[in-house]
């Protein structure tokens, strides 16, 4: 192509041959609830040859001065001259009779309000009134009755004029003919319909339908419950107030200011009063925010910074990094978090505290920290899974086999030396820092991802690496939630009322717990080796055993902590026991 556009403005200014995408059906904004591309009632407006009806619903709030009984199938006008059912030269007697009647009626039907009075077919007559006082059916009901009429059987209808009070005039007009065949044998609409008739009653303007179309009915074409854009952000784009930022709000809320973002309610009717109304959406639909990944974005969307990571020069370098850095870091963090979790009082211990909210906060905090610790354990498994995956694909250095990497490290990237510490504000802040988006842990796997996307590496390992790489962000938000909860109790400084007084115990004091911990590590090593050999079933059994031990460790750890003793997880193991 000459000239070939290079930058964005040049590309935008270059016309591209072909239909624009917005002409395709799948890109259209459906003009009613999806699936209804036109209003079927339009067909029955012409059910009887030569006459056009409107199906009128009863007004909800009738003006006292307007005519009474407006609802029903009202005659719009006689439209017979070009009706394909009624050719002037037809030999059919009923057509000639009907044409003659209609010619004489044209003026009459334009005078006053004329309504469908009854229909009669096969000896059955249906009157269009819901009671003996002559209260007419609503237009929708009349439409349903008309839809029940049969083809190819003589049909007689009665039209009657209603006066201002809504009462029927004495003299009806009786016409006989057949119900219209809406579609030809080829599926083409009858020529009586004029262009625009099928869509003429659709939502106009489209914004009204766009407003009403929502997930409670059908798969909607706009978001409903979303997260608002945080008004204040931390580095990495995290909301300063994570709780506020994670309350779903109504995308259609009329007040988009900070005070308007109340939580979305479970019932449609509860949300409705706060939503944009029809008249409002016409004015502001262009200001409805885009939503990316469930969150409203501002005027300009800045995608998260892509980590620039260089691939490792060889599989071996990556393997060493996984062995010496990633896997040990994950276990070390898991233990630090676990230790910190034990330093928190149980909700029972906090009962009777002057802060009524403390037992609840502690319950949540302990669960959160435990969850993150478990997450790090999962990461350790994934790091090992990357290793055994690389091994199974022959990417290990010659002569080397996969060995489980289940050990701690004394060094955490860009942090002071790893240590077991109670969850005081300083420790918590260090956890937040280490899990921070773009921080040391968050970017730990970036080079793995960059390497594994190169050709020659198995695709599933790349996906696994991406998964680990993107999994950490949760940890950051969760620790920030804990920070927020504990902020209320930190004012007085140490000792913090939510903490147990805890010190790192001696190996002797924590002998049983340490033994249990080491047995867990042994079981994991066995399980990973089995996994690497492809024996998932055996691995599963061993993992299950390790899980039971983990539950036991949790109980032991909590008991010790109540007595002020923390498990010295980093105690070197006396001697390596034989692996079963």
């Amino acid at each position, binding site marked *: 192509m*000459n000239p070939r556009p290079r930058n964005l*403005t040049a590309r935008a200014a270059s016309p591209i041959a072909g239909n624009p995408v917005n002409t395709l059906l799948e890109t259209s904004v459906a003009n009613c609830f999806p699936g209804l591309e036109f209003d079927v009632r339009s067909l029955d407006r012409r059910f009887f040859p030569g006459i056009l009806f409107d199906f009128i619903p009863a007004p909800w709030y009738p003006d006292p001065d307007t005519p009474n009984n407006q609802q029903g199938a009202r005659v719009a006008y006689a439209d017979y001259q070009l009706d394909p059912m009624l050719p002037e030269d037809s030999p059919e007697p009923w057509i000639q009779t009907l044409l003659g009647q209609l010619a004489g009626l044209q003026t009459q039907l334009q005078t006053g309000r004329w309504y469908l009075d009854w229909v009669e077919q096969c000896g059955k007559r249906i009157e269009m009134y819901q009671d003996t006082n002559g209260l007419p059916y609503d237009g929708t009901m009349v439409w349903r009755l008309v839809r029940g009429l049969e083809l190819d059987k003589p049909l007689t209808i009665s039209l009657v004029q209603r006066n201002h009070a809504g009462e029927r005039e004495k003299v009806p007009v009786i016409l006989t003919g057949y119900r219209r065949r809406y579609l030809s044998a080829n599926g083409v609409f009858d020529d009586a319909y004029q262009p625009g008739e099928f869509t003429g009653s659709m939502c106009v303007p489209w914004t009204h339908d766009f407003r009403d179309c929502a997930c409670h009915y059908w798969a909607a074409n706009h978001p409903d419950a979303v997260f608002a*854009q945080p008004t204040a952000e931390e580095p990495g784009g995290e909301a300063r107030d994570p709780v506020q930022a994670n309350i779903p709000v109504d995308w259609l809320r009329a007040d988009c200011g900070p005070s308007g973002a109340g939580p979305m309610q479970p019932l449609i009717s509860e949300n409705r009063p706060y939503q944009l109304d029809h008249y409002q959406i016409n004015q502001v639909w262009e200001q409805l925010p885009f939503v990316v990944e469930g969150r409203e974005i501002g005027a300009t969307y800045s995608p998260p910074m892509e980590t620039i990571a260089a691939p490792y020069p060889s599989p071996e370098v990556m393997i060493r990094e996984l062995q010496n850095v990633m896997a040990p870091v994950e276990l070390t963090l898991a233990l630090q978090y676990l230790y910190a979790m034990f330093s928190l009082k149980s909700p029972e211990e906090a009962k009777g505290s002057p802060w009524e909210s403390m037992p609840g906060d502690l319950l949540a905090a302990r669960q959160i920290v435990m969850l993150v610790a478990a997450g790090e354990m999962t990461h350790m498994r994934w790091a090992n899974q990357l290793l055994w995956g690389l091994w199974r694909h022959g990417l290990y250095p010659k002569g080397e086999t996969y060995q489980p990497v289940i050990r701690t490290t004394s060094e955490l990237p860009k942090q002071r030396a790893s240590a077991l510490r109670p969850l005081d504000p300083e420790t918590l802040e260090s956890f937040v820092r280490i899990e921070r988006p773009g921080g040391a842990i968050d970017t730990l796997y970036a080079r793995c991802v960059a390497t594994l996307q190169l050709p020659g590496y198995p695709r599933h390992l790349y996906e696994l690496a991406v998964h680990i790489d993107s999994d950490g962000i949760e940890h950051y938000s969760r620790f920030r939630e804990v920070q927020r909860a504990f902020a209320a109790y930190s004012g007085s400084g140490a000792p913090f009322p939510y903490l147990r007084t805890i010190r790192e115990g001696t190996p002797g004091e924590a002998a049983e717990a340490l033994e249990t911990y080491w047995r867990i590590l042994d079981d994991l090593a066995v399980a990973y080796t089995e996994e690497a050999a492809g024996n998932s079933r055996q691995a599963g059994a061993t993992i299950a055993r390790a899980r039971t031990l983990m539950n036991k460790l949790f109980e032991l750890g909590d008991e010790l902590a109540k007595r002020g003793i923390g498990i010295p997880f980093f105690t070197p193991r006396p001697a390596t026991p034989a692996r079963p």
Partner: protein
Amino acid sequence: MNAAGLMHESRPASPSLHLFRSAEGDHLFLPDGSRLYDIDAATRDVLADPAGHVEQALARLGLNPHAAAPMDAVQDPPIRSLSLAVSQACNLSCGYCYAQGGSFGAPARQMSWPVAEQAIRTLFAEAPVGSRVVVAFLGGEPLIHRGLIRQATTFAAELSEHTGVRVGFSLTSNGTLVREDDGEFFERHGFAVTISMDGTPERHNQLRVFADGRPTYRRIEENIAPLLRMQKRMQISARVTVTPENLNLRASLDHLLGLGFHSAGFAPMLASPSGRLQLEPRHFETMLEQMTGCGGEFVRRTVARERYAFSNLTEALRQLHRGAHRPYPCGAGASYLGVSASGDFTACHRFVEDPLGAMGSLASGLDRDRQNLWLRERHVDTQEPCRACWARYLCGGGCHHEVLHRGRVACDYIRGWLQYCLLTYVKLQREAPWYFGSHV
């Protein structure tokens, strides 16, 4: 291509287009919309023909020479950014300073809280929910008046929370007064901090001295070290004012990025109040040579996926990729205004106490007539020799303050630099295409 070559190749031939050649082939740049195309040699010959009718030739190629929206003069722009001259005094005495020791040639002054408060209220008053405004703190040396900066920032942040108008903060400082707790404050509010440093310690000390002549480098280095370490949300950049005394830019850039600045860039000293230390035409070739030297290192590092934040080039690449085009060099006198210590509106922070850029005051309101007149008069299409230059919508006609006080002395340099940036853009699209996915 060396500096002389860049200047030669970029000299203005037609106001409607610019043709250049790279290792990738021939290219066409259309000023209107800043559109960049690859073309074949035959097309180049047609377009380069001085006797040819350019617009017809472009039309035959399917190119509308006027694809972008017409660049009419801006009128009654909303205020989106204010710089507050919180302290019209400085503890330094740099020979080239446009503010002449910080006081702009007037008695030294400090901004009072009512002035700052009113300025910020004015800024927020017209901003719609969801939009973003910027409060900039300048001087003089703004940190002389630290208390006001903190008060004003906190106030603006609160207004932001209440109104749903987002706010950003920036501060330009000489770095001699900055403290660690300033860093914590800036970090909390996500400041964009610019520290003026003039390169390596020797050069810097030669140019940037305390009022009593003592060197400042050591003090600045000590002061900013903790800030550089804590920058997460805040970004601390270095800006080098280039004078004939510190033209070794590559050494300066490596030194500053080595200190840990988020980015570093260069601003040529084109008009100093005394005429001292300003660049003369004979310096521009050296300057361009140095800039492209830094650019070469940027390319090398970027291709190797290493960070090397040479802000002049990263910003230029971003603008070229997006096809940025504008009839002004900056937002000065439009959506960006300065507020002097006494509460006068000025076209920008440089026009404090300068009648050329006066635009009313907080008390009497923004003088829209003067502003609109400014925007009509300063429009690049009314400027000479800009009207005939292909680079006019990239350059915008050059800094108003410098042009009004010294004229346009650096056009060859600016075009040469833009030519280099165009070549680098083309080169990086081949060698590091990922760069344009996320960095620009």
